[in-house]
């Protein structure tokens, strides 16, 4: 949709247009339904946070207890938003990188609808008291096989596209996509089998569920986010990735380290002592691939001397995501030492780290990709740069506030919990102010995502700008539209006809 498209090989441009056309409906479905679930999750997060410091909010209804709202919030954030955004990213990125049209869009769309139905059933299951109680596996047990089968029917075609791709170089993004495509069923299937099917020791089931949480973040969401960043940075700036060897190092170090993370959440539990130490070490070492990827991506972007990196919404969100990833790595280093872990294990800190990983890192990269992909599949440009800017800054401030309040509040709360001379009520009161701050921050994020969802729905209805000139975040004043002349897409299509 930018000027560079018109200068590229016409056959290449036609292939890209055909790929986008073949994936328009599934990609838009995943992004739009994901954005809707994100808003639901954020509102549930707001409600559960409000409830934690003001228990009279929403009255005495059983569905409105903190426990159920919090479980619903986290599970909808993961499966309703994060997974669906990842699916849209996987199917589009793999098709574009393998230069293959999708031949199974209808099946993918049907599987996507089944996924959403299962999520809806799961949400009502949690709110009506039928949850399993396991943090990120809280949907009623009947739901997870449906989710697994839906996932297979969504993602398997992307793996097949990779197998039958035309010869040539394998892009860095493709490594990460393939890793994510295979890691999700490995982590999902095996964890659910150990926790819900096999008759094992309950403590090991708890350990497996914590391993699953870390696996979902580091082996599925992180690779998808990084693949999006590795696609967008060179694409938008027109520059190659800064260092291929650094990219390779970042990939293999992530694959080597990530599978070991998660057990540190059960530090002090009567499980083999080496397990929590391995989990903590792996979480600390995540900083290594995080640094490698962030340096590579940010150097690729920031070495660009044109205004693309400043004015591109995609790159702005991608840089925000990379910053989120770096902060996740650094905080993981400090919060997983044995002293800090003992202090924060039963506090708000863990929640803050989860939100940083899912929203501060993954979601920001996903937003960047969505702002790039949607104009290409809908052949319309985003309507309003103000909507985009508001979405960015409200999300950034909101997630920074949630993370800061949760982690700071958790540290004070944990310190008070460990003080055996003080009453337990003191620990709860230390965290109260930070819980109030977290509630306010969720309100900002809800506002940001209302804007985003509205903008996305307008694009889905193909009410975007009919122009080949992209919507940029150029803050200059222009006599005419800063986005170039309107309506030139109609002239282009008429000329081709």
């Amino acid at each position, binding site marked *: 949709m930018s000027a560079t498209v018109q200068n590229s090989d016409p056959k290449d441009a036609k292939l890209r247009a055909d790929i986008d056309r073949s994936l328009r409906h599934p990609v838009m479905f995943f992004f739009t339904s994901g954005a809707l679930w994100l808003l639901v999750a954020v509102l549930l997060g707001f409600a559960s946070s409000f409830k934690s410091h003001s228990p009279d909010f929403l009255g005495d209804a059983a569905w409105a207890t903190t426990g159920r709202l919090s479980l619903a919030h986290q599970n909808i954030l993961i499966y309703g938003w994060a997974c669906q955004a990842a699916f849209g990213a996987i199917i589009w990125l793999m098709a574009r990188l393998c230069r293959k049209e999708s031949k199974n869009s209808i099946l993918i769309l049907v599987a996507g609808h089944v996924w959403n139905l299962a999520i809806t059933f799961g949400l009502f299951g949690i709110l009506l008291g039928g949850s399993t109680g396991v943090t990120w596996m809280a949907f009623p047990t009947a739901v997870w096989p449906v989710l697994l089968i839906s996932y297979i029917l969504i993602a398997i075609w992307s793996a097949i596209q990779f197998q039958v791709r035309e010869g040539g170089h394998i892009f860095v993004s493709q490594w990460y996509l393939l890793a994510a495509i295979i890691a999700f069923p490995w982590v999902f299937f095996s964890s659910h089998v150990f926790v819900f099917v096999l008759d*094992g020791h309950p403590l090991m089931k708890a350990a497996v569920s914590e391993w699953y949480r870390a696996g979902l973040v580091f082996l599925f969401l992180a690779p998808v986010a990084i693949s999006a960043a590795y696609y967008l940075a060179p694409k938008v700036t027109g520059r190659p990735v800064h260092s291929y060897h650094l990219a390779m190092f970042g990939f293999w170090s992530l694959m080597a380290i990530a599978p070991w993370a998660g057990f540190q959440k059960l530090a002090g539990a009567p499980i083999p002592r080496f397990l929590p130490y391995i989990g903590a070490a792996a979480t600390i070492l995540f900083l290594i691939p995080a640094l490698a990827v962030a340096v590579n991506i940010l150097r690729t972007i920031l070495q660009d001397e044109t205004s693309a990196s400043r004015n591109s919404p995609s790159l702005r969100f991608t840089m925000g995501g990379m910053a989120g990833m770096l902060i996740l790595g650094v905080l993981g280093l400090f919060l997983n030492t044995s002293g800090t872990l003992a202090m924060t294990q039963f506090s708000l800190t863990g929640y803050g780290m989860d939100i940083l990983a899912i929203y501060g890192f993954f979601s920001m990269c996903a937003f960047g990709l969505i702002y790039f992909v949607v104009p290409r599949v809908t052949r319309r440009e985003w309507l309003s740069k103000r909507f985009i800017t508001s979405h960015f800054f409200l999300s950034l401030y909101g997630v920074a506030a949630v993370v800061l309040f949760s982690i700071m509040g958790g540290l004070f709360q944990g310190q008070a919990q460990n003080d055996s001379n003080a009453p337990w009520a003191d620990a709860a009161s230390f965290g109260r102010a930070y819980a109030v701050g977290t509630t306010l921050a969720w309100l900002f994020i809800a506002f940001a995502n209302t804007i985003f969802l509205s903008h996305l729905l307008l694009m889905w209805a193909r009410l975007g700008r009919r122009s080949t000139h992209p919507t940029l975040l150029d803050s200059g004043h222009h006599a005419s539209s800063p986005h170039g002349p309107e309506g030139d897409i109609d002239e282009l299509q008429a000329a081709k006809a």
Partner: protein
Amino acid sequence: MSATNDTPLKRFTAFWVVLGAFLLFGIIALILAPLTNTPEVTAADEAGATRRLAIRELVEEEQAKNLAMVENGDKIQAPPAEIFGKVGAQLASIKPQAVKEDRFRDPALVAEEAPAEQEDASDAPAATETAAPAESEAAPEPADSSDQ
């Protein structure tokens, strides 16, 4: 690889290979887990479980009775925040009492004492009664909080 890499046969083969790759880890877990998990239940485990379940049953019966009385209006439930400190102080002041019924005791201790008692009965002409220090030193039971 050339453009002829994309054939229906290749796609069909790739489908099954990828499906196998997706399910591989889970299938390995399903195969290995029963081989490594040895759910042997020992006699001590079972005795301990029986003891815990008996205690749980008693506790649940008492709680159900109290709840029923609260719902009927026979008792008024005091706000927990007002009485926790008081009840906690009373509990802390009570010395531990010996458990009398065997079903609530550690099965290993019960097993140890049974042969010892049999030996005493056969050797000694008369067994002296052991004191029940817990009973004589026990503080009065705490007042029922729900009466307040």
